[in-house]
């Protein structure tokens, strides 16, 4: 705006002041201040004020969000409980399965060793090498073995059924873990909101080299990991193992 225009505005301001027209006075005054160099600063202040107000409202809105309260007070502690329950269920199942297998293995071994013993005599019988007394003994052993087979088979069936039933956790733990995944997503959303409000740039996460990562999980960056036992063997042999 050149000085001529400013002068014209000033004259109009005086005129309006003299005639007592307050509304026009304010309009012209703010027009003049906005167009002067000082006006840039006052616009900046206005903008800062607006942003501050918006930020304040956003934070308040965030704090007043009942979902946050619910997440912190109820759902996250609940999730810990749920996951602990998953651990105890899977542990129980593993123990039941292991017990059944430990009980079953000697039964299978017993059948195997008796069958091998009889098989030797049976081979001799087929070659007509058995005396009458030995044949009597073999028939007695065979009879006993058939009885034992029936008993052991029933016992093994029972243990295998125990193994079968011990897998019932999968359905339940699957449901529980899915609930917790949903919760984690919710918390993630809220955290993203919070980061957006603060508008700050978060520092890049540094990988802690000393941290134990545990099992390799597909799709997650866990640093420089090996891909199975063959990789381990290759690495170790490259180190002279």
């Amino acid at each position, binding site marked *: 705006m050149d000085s001529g225009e400013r002068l014209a505005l000033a004259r109009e301001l005086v005129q309006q002041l003299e005639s007592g027209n307050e509304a026009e006075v304010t309009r012209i005054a703010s027009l003049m201040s906005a167009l002067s160099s000082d006006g840039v600063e006052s616009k900046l202040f206005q903008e800062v004020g607006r942003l501050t107000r918006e930020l304040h409202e956003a934070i308040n809105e965030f704090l007043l969000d009942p979902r946050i309260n619910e997440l912190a007070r109820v759902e996250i502690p609940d999730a810990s409980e749920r996951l602990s329950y998953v651990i105890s269920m899977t542990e129980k199942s593993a*123990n039941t399965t292991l017990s059944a297998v430990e009980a079953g293995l000697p039964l299978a071994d017993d059948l195997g060793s008796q069958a091998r013993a009889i098989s030797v005599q049976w081979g001799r019988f087929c070659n007509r090498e058995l005396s009458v007394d030995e044949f009597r003994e073999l028939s007695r052993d065979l009879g006993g073995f058939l009885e034992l087979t029936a008993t052991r088979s029933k016992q093994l069936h029972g243990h295998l059924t125990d193994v079968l039933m011990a897998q019932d956790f999968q359905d339940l733990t699957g449901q529980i873990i899915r609930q917790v995944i949903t919760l984690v997503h919710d918390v993630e959303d809220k955290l993203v909101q919070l980061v957006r409000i603060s508008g700050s740039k978060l520092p890049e996460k540094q990988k802690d080299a000393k941290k134990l990562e545990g099992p390799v999980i597909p799709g997650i960056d866990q640093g420089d990991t090996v891909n199975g036992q063959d990789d381990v063997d290759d690495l170790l042999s490259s180190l002279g193992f």
Partner: protein
Amino acid sequence: MNKNMKILIVDDFSTMRRIIKNLLRDLGFTNTQEADDGNTALPMLQSGNFDFLVTDWNMPGMTGIDLLRAVRADPNLVKLPVLMVTAESKREQIIEAAQAGVNGYVVKPFTAVTLEEKISKIFERVGS
């Protein structure tokens, strides 16, 4: 390989100890004992005449790598063969274990065949 050798299995999960114990029994090794972390294992090793140590890495209390270092620092245990059976699979960790003096490294999940292979390899080398 002496099938009567005394073996210590160290893992914080009892189910994993049971699995390893059963696999070892299948391989003919019946003389096994268990510990749930390095702090429990070390005194057992120091007083128990063990011939072989199978240990996990990540355990509360004393970890497997610290147990390995303690074993290698003990003049009576310095030559004890140690097999690490662990889910830890970062290259730098495997190198760290190798540098600390591990004799074999098996990553979980593993198979019975892998375990047998590593054990026989360790004793081939120890024997030669």
